């Protein structure tokens, strides 16, 4: 009798854990879905907002959208690491805005960074940033739902230790947005890639 009761308890526990294990693929799948959506499917949701609500705004940025390379991501706010580098987003699906510099749309160079590649072969937000082209548009949606549009002007590759003054600063009195991600070979000694892909964009 006692042994029967124990067996039933064990069976119940097995059922619970089986359920947990079965739910894992669904969780993983739903995370990956954020990356694999086609750009068009993501932009049909609020087409009117997306197209017509562009205006000059210096409110906090919330989302970044780059239709030509399928980027549609939330924006985290970061500062500096202890060694004086711009910090990076904690979630590979998000980008990070350098909040010690101008906001996107303000005069100066706003800077946004995103990961290239992630652990366990999970995709990262700027995996396809190398496909962006001059003339492509970058949309920053702010907290009011308005979009600020930037047009890609120049695409450059910097050494990871190169002076980044012209990425973070500009003196022409205009609003710029610069995107950064890693590129180049993996340097296992320094635990980082050797170069950075920089996308320079100007406010439309």
């Amino acid at each position, binding site marked *: 009798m006692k*042994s029967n009761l124990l*067996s039933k308890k064990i069976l119940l526990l097995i059922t619970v854990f089986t359920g947990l294990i079965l739910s894992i693929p669904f969780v993983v799948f739903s995370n990956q879905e954020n990356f694999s959506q086609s750009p068009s499917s993501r932009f049909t949701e609020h087409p009117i907002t997306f197209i017509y609500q562009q205006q000059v705004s210096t409110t906090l940025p919330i989302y970044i959208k780059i239709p030509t390379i399928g980027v549609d991501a939330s924006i985290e706010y970061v*500062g500096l690491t202890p060694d*004086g580098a711009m910090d990076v987003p904690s979630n590979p699906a998000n980008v990070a805005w350098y909040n*010690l510099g101008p906001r996107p749309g303000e005069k100066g160079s706003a800077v946004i960074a995103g990961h290239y590649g992630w652990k366990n072969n999970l995709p990262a937000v700027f995996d396809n940033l190398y496909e962006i082209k001059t003339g492509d548009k970058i949309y920053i949606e702010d907290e009011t739902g308005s979009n600020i549009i930037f047009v890609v002007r120049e695409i450059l590759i910097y050494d990871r230790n190169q002076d980044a003054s012209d990425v973070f600063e500009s003196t022409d009195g205009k609003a710029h947005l610069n995107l950064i991600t890693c590129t180049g070979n993996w340097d296992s000694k320094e635990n980082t890639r050797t170069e950075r892909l920089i996308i320079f964009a100007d406010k439309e």
Partner: protein
Amino acid sequence: MKVPSPLSLPAGPGSVTYTYTLSNIGTVPVTNITMVGDSCDPIVLISGDTNNDYRLDVTDTWVYTCSTILSNTHTNIVTATGQANSMTATDTATATVVVGVPVVPPLIHVTKIPSPLTLLAGGGTITYTNKVTNPGTESLSNIHLTDDKCSPVKYISGDSNNNSKLDKTETWTYTCQTNLTKTTVNTITASGEANGLIAKDFAIATVHVAAPKLPATGIGPNEKNVPWDIVLPAGIFTVLLLLYITQKKQTA
């Protein structure tokens, strides 16, 4: 600093010689010095480059002169520029010569020194120290200082006889503190009055805020984390399964 001689031509049109005194109030030598006047040419270097290295060293005081004929009361403006550490330093000086009226115009001179001169990435607090002097002959009243990117500009000291006038022998000190997050150029404007005329001078200072290093936004091509979200439940499941099988065998 610029001082015309004479300060006035009460009898009417005549010759004026401007004397420009250029010094380096920073910490590094300045190269590529240029002096551009708006209404007097040529501006000639008379003395100061004692070691003939064409650099305005921190111990140097370079003296320039320029002569011209004035027929009306005129304010002359000269702009000095130089370069150090890939940055440009600029200063502007003005001086008025009164023609045809027996009035001596006032002169005022201001300098601005930021501390520190540079900030690390992210920026920090900066204190500007502004010093005002009177290179003219008349004491100045209604001294005002305004900074285009820092306020309040606070008077600290200098009015030794407490007469509220900037006398020839006095140096008045003002400070202003602010927080900078990016490279900033700002201008202090000093003004003072005497004989019904207003004298003005400007000083420009640049504080360089270093740009951040580029972020590390990637991971190794084969880098993997232990997927504890899968390994842990699977391990527990296996242990329980083994327990269950053992129990079943015992009951059978």
